[in-house]
């Protein structure tokens, strides 16, 4: 079959005058670079595993954190990341088809398939931007408790269960209330900007402006949720009881709300707090590993565009071979390879 190296005697192979690996210097260095880059990613994912194994608190599960699709409400666990994985695999295929066209010195083929690869890369980057935005804004938000408290919560099967919550436990808001509350908190921020409201206020007078603002933004300090959620992102069992997504309502919800630790409210995740886990490392690793991978995809797209332009201008045709496509192909497949592992260890396991 094409590609299988023909046998060469050892003396000839290692005797100098030619590459014993039967590949060019450039390709070999690309391989060495990829090995070192793979060690970096391997180190990052292993570090993630160390922190996760070392944690004594439950770790959030991927299917609970990543269950949204753009423009849709409801739960679609893992569908979005599966789509991202599919996009990257397909762009990897178009890249290998470009390499194959290069082997046949088919300029039109190279330009076509490399072009599709670039489009796939942009799709992936866009998906990742949405994923990050969703992760940062969160769904509903949560707060931490200031002191230990015991409340009655309802399990999914309708039974009640007593929950002893420690200081610092996360309590989550329902997404509708959470968004209204976030809006109200931001509304207060806007009120402080006197100049902002004046354009509206002129017609109504000073007092009218105040009422106007209240009608649009409910006062955050007087809002009380009807229901709160415990264990939203973690799967916890105690004996036969499934303690995932417990609902606290009525008086107990008010008690939890009153027990909110000051300034502990967070919507989504940032670099010092996240609503998904007690462990901040969860968000930190998400940002660093997927961000580092996204940076690789971005630089890959840039390199692909440069080489695409070179192919379009016939640089490789004049050179007589399309080895450059192979080299950037190696890099692009590597990016796909890393995502396969990120997908498994961040979202599935």
């Amino acid at each position: 079959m094409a590609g299988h190296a023909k046998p060469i005697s050892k003396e000839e192979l290692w005797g100098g005058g030619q590459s014993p690996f039967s590949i060019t210097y450039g390709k070999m260095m690309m391989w060495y670079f990829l090995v070192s880059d793979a060690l970096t990613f391997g180190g990052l994912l292993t570090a993630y595993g160390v922190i996760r194994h070392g944690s004594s608190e439950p770790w959030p599960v991927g299917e609970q954190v990543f269950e949204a699709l753009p423009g849709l409400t409801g739960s679609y666990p893992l569908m979005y990341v599966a789509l991202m994985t599919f996009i990257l695999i397909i762009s990897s295929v178009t890249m290998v088809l470009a390499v194959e066209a290069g082997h046949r010195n088919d300029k039109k083929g190279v330009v076509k398939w490399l072009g599709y690869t670039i489009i796939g890369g942009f799709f992936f980057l866009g998906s990742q931007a949405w994923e990050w935005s969703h992760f940062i804004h969160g769904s509903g938000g949560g707060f931490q408790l200031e002191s230990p408290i015991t409340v009655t919560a309802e399990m999914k099967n309708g039974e009640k269960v007593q929950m002893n919550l420690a200081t610092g436990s996360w309590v989550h808001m329902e997404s509708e209330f959470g968004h209204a509350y976030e809006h109200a908190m931001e509304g207060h921020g806007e009120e402080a900007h006197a100049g902002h409201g004046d354009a509206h206020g002129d017609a109504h007078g000073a007092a009218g402006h105040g009422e106007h603002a209240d009608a649009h933004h409910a006062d955050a300090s007087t809002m009380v949720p009807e229901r709160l959620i415990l264990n939203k992102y973690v799967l916890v069992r105690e004996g036969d009881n499934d303690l995932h997504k417990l609902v606290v309502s009525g008086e107990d919800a008010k008690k939890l709300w009153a027990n909110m630790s000051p300034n502990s409210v967070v919507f989504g995740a940032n670099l010092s707090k996240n609503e998904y886990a007690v462990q901040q490392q969860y968000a930190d690793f998400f940002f660093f590993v997927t961000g580092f991978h996204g940076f690789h995809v971005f630089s890959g797209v840039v390199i692909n565009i440069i080489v695409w332009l070179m192919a379009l201008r016939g640089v490789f045709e004049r050179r007589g071979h399309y080895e450059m496509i192979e080299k950037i192909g190696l890099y692009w497949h590597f990016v796909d390879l890393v995502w396969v592992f990120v997908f498994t260890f961040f979202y599935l396991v």
Partner: protein
Amino acid sequence: MERDDLIVNDSYAVNATHTEEEGKKIRKKLYMVTVLLTLITVVEVFMGVAFKRNETFTWEVIKLGFIVLTVVKAAYIVLVFMHLGEERRNLKYVILLPYALFILYLIFIGLREGISVHDAQNIFK
């Protein structure tokens, strides 16, 4: 200076070109691998959604299944898409063996460390 890294008698040498027929054969293989990789991803997502995450033995097996499927996917990408499988054997080993050695050792000490930290936290809770 004359380049000494150009290979004469090899179908992946820079100046060697594949014929249209060889190209057809290679493309067929690539499409097969594409279907396979897509199927594995679909199976993984299905496993992730269908099985409950808990402390049972079943979930441990599923987790191991994820890792095995991931390694299979990675092997197809490296060996077919990056056509490392068709490179000379000494290059294959130079790339794969040192990496496997380092990363397996790193995973071993890393997980060992993580488990110890976990146990220590439970003791001093």
